[in-house]
């Protein structure tokens, strides 16, 4: 595909109107696309020029907000992050993300997804309630301790991993790779002390033990978060706590703020050597 030349690509979009109450159907559009156009650009072209009733979510158009997850040619992608050219085909089939209820066209209901994310308490929990609610100082965390969980903080909550997971396809009570990976992200954070609160939520039949390492979540994640790795490390942590193996490290200590220096300058004063 050349930047100047445009090709006519057929977009087969699954439409569904809840007000009619009928079944979903595929509608075809012809979109002129050139090199560099993303699938989201194609959908916006459809909405502006061909059919303005099409509904889809999109916001940042740079793969950081997580709104535009869709099933493109039977594989979940972020529409803004997927070039039309990478499919090497003149027919694209676009469907909403599976394993989520459809509201209209390509818009899915992510409320149960966020409810489960809230249920695993995605925030730092400390034993000292007063210190947790009204912090006055920083926590000590070395670079090595940060590397233990930094990869899992890049999650943008797009829901693509939940669409890819075979267990999520049939088990409606399964937490999904995203919630389990975020649970590990907080348990592995050395500032956090809330393992005992989170383990009864995830260490159940419909929680972490229904993951059987199909690996589809890590493979399809658009940000390289690798939730499969987080879930297996969470299983390792659950097993070692249950069997009482290994020493539990104390949570990060607080670091008092630096003492006020006498100088009013924004940089430390140093004496100039007089020759």
């Amino acid at each position, binding site marked *: 595909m050349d930047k100047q030349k445009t090709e006519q690509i057929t977009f087969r979009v699954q439409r569904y109107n*809840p007000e009619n109450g009928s079944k979903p159907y595929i509608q075809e559009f012809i979109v002129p696309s050139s090199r560099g156009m993303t699938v989201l650009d194609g959908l916006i072209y459809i909405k502006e020029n061909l059919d303005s009733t099409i509904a889809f979510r999109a916001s940042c158009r740079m793969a950081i907000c997580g709104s535009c997850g869709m099933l493109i040619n039977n594989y979940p992608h972020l529409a803004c992050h997927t070039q039309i050219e990478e499919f090497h085909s003149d027919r694209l089939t676009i469907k909403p993300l599976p394993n989520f209820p459809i509201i209209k066209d390509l818009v899915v209901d992510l409320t149960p997804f966020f409810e489960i994310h809230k249920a695993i308490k995605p925030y730092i929990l400390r034993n000292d309630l007063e210190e947790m609610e009204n912090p006055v100082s920083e926590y000590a965390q070395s670079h090595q301790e940060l590397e233990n969980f930094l990869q899992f903080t890049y999650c943008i909550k797009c829901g693509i991993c939940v669409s890819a997971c*075979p267990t*999520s*396809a049939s088990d409606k009570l399964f937490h999904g790779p995203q919630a389990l990976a975020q649970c590990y992200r907080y348990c592995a954070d050395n500032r956090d002390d809330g393992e005992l609160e989170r383990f009864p939520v995830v260490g159940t039949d419909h929680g972490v033990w229904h993951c059987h390492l199909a690996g589809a979540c890590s493979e399809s994640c658009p940000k390289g978060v*690798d939730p499969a*790795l987080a879930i297996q*490390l969470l299983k390792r942590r659950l097993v070692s706590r249950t069997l009482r193996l290994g020493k539990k490290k104390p949570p990060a200590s607080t670091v008092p703020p630096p003492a006020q220096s006498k100088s009013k300058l924004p940089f430390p004063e140093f004496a100039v050597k007089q020759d």
Partner: protein
Amino acid sequence: MRQIRPRQNYLGVGGWVWAGNYKLERYLYILHRVTGLGILLFLLVHLIVTTFFRIQGQEVWEKAMTVLNNPLFKTGEFLVAVAFVYHALNGLRLLLQELGLLMAKPIPPIYPYSDSLRKKRLWTMAIIGIIIILCLVFFYDFIVGGW
């Protein structure tokens, strides 16, 4: 505004069986499930044969063995042996990876992203190689020992 009820969109059991464009580990997951359930079905029949027919004495046993000695059942036995070899070795891989022993360390993601299952794929391939070798061993023995 009228309340809209969202339409259910679960893939169901189809999500177990159809692996689509996903990579190797998803297919290994499907085979693990299929071989497990297959061995369970064989186990029930096997227990009936080795308890009911065994306890009734020699004539009943020998009659059952002559019925079960034809090539169809021998092929079934070979498939069960292959299923056991696959399930055991893949289960060993799952044991190591689910306890975090054969997985990569968490590192900040740098494009192009590579997940830890992909990084350890050489080990997975080695285990599949051992599975294939053992299946050939069983195949050789079935051929030599009379089908």
